[in-house]
């Protein structure tokens, strides 16, 4: 008989995995709905009531389409590309705290798969490896548009990772921990981190857009200049994996923004509601998902508002604006922390 902790972990992993996939699935539906509503249309509304079966229809279409591997492509890498993209997208969810502690029997467990003490570094590592899926797929297609898309993706992601990391450093300096669970717990006692780190939040948000290849930073797949970018040659479910990975990344990065800067599962006056234990945790999880859904909506809202950047503008923004700003933010944070700790009292 397995100990209850291990059974709980297995259930939690499966639950998180399922929730991630379902949310990503319905993000595709939400994307089309939001796009429709913003453009004075209705969006998909034929498959089932309000079109809620549209993702299933899309998935079925993806699965039954012809599986095509170009003759001149590198076969193994061609398959490896989308697999890596999907794998790295699914790996990020494990360090996110989805809610407060819950009590099962006499044991108190966290609603977080693992609270490793280098949580943020783990995330950065997985994100930085995530670019390989796009690069390998783009190169293996043996198509110049795919290659250009892959080159754009890699240079864009490397550039924005730096600003992303620097923005996070200010946050880490402030909280003094790399564990996501601890960062969220600290926001229970004080205000949400966005109050202390507005500039850091803005930089993080912009970089998150660039890292997920979402508009206005969707240059790797810009359809009007690169046809489809790195996934030009892909069809069937391999294409589906790439598109799906993008939506999973969007979900996870929304969860990250909510956890790091907007208090995670905490909400104002949560301890004066008279809720206790598991009840409170459920409400907290609900609140957390509301925050996450808002940011997913925000991603879509931005996508259907802003036009795409030009590549030199993208690089200028990343290297000449965001990185100096992030360093400035780091300096300011350092000075404030030093002042608070009495470093300047001579």
């Amino acid at each position: 008989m397995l100990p209850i902790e291990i059974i709980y972990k297995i259930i939690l992993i499966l639950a998180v995995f399922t929730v991630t996939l379902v949310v990503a699935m319905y993000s595709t539906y939400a994307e089309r709905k939001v796009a429709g509503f913003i453009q004075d249309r209705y969006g998909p509304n034929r498959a089932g009531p309000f079109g809620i079966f549209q993702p299933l229809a899309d998935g079925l279409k993806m699965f039954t389409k012809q599986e095509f591997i170009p003759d001149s492509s590198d076969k193994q890498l061609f398959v490896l590309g989308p697999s890596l993209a999907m794998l790295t997208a699914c790996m990020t969810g494990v360090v996110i705290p989805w809610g407060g502690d819950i009590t099962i029997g006499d044991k108190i467990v966290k609603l977080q798969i693992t609270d490793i003490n280098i949580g943020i570094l783990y995330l950065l590592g997985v994100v930085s490896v995530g670019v390989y899926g796009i690069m390998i797929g783009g190169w293996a297609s043996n198509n110049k548009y795919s290659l250009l898309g892959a080159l754009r993706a890699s240079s864009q992601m490397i550039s924005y990772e730096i600003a992303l990391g620097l923005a996070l450093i200010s946050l880490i300096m402030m909280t003094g921990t790399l564990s996501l669970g601890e960062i969220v717990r600290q926001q229970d006692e004080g205000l949400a981190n966005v109050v202390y780190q507005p500039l850091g939040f803005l930089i993080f948000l912009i970089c998150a857009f660039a890292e997920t290849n979402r508009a206005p930073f969707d240059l790797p797949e810009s359809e009007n200049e690169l046809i489809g970018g790195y996934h030009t040659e892909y069809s069937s479910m391999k294409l589906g994996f790439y598109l799906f990975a993008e939506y999973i990344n969007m979900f996870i990065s929304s969860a990250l923004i909510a956890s790091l800067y907007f208090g995670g599962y905490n909400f104002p006056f949560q301890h004066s509601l008279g809720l206790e234990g598991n009840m409170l945790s459920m409400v907290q999880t609900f609140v957390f998902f509301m925050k996450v859904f808002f940011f997913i909506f925000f991603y879509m809202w931005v996508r259907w508002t802003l036009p795409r950047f030009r590549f030199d503008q993208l690089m200028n923004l990343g290297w000449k604006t965001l990185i100096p700003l992030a360093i400035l933010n780091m300096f300011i944070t350092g000075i404030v922390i030093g002042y608070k700790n009495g470093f300047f009292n001579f």
Partner: protein
Amino acid sequence: MQLTNRSKQVADTKMTWVERIYLPAIFKGMMITISHFFKKKVTYQYPEQKRDIAPVYRGQHVLKRDDHGAERCTACGLCAVACPAEAITMVAEERKKGDEKHYREEKYAGIYEINMLRCIFCGLCEEACPKEAIFLTDRIVPTTFHREDYIYGKDRLVEKMDERIDVSVRQTQNLANFKKNSEYAHNKLK
């Protein structure tokens, strides 16, 4: 020339600091898109909700029968000559004895075909017809998957006896008056 009062004078001046950080402009744009989110949608939900079509709309053709149910067409070929897209083909046949009930004139169209992919729905066949046999209606040509399905023969062009097609809707008053002229008297029932 000023078409609307929404035009904006653009100038190639250097942007100010506030303009260069772009965030106010982005915020403004986001507010515009979110306002559209709650606006009334312009979509027509097609099969349930149809748009009004123009009174003179020219759709799928019909070969009319007269009040006794005889085909009006005499296969004179004027419609095929008038057709700019050369979509009409016909083969004339002579009326046999005993077929007077089915065909109004002594000569009739044994085969009458319109290629709906070639047809440009200009309505010149309708204007050319001396026998008031062919009309364009307000029906829409349905789509299919095969090219052959678009060649409409007499089976689909000639109106059925039990479901007569009303073509008076899209006939303008002018045309109706014109058709009352004495040169069209032969079309009237004897």
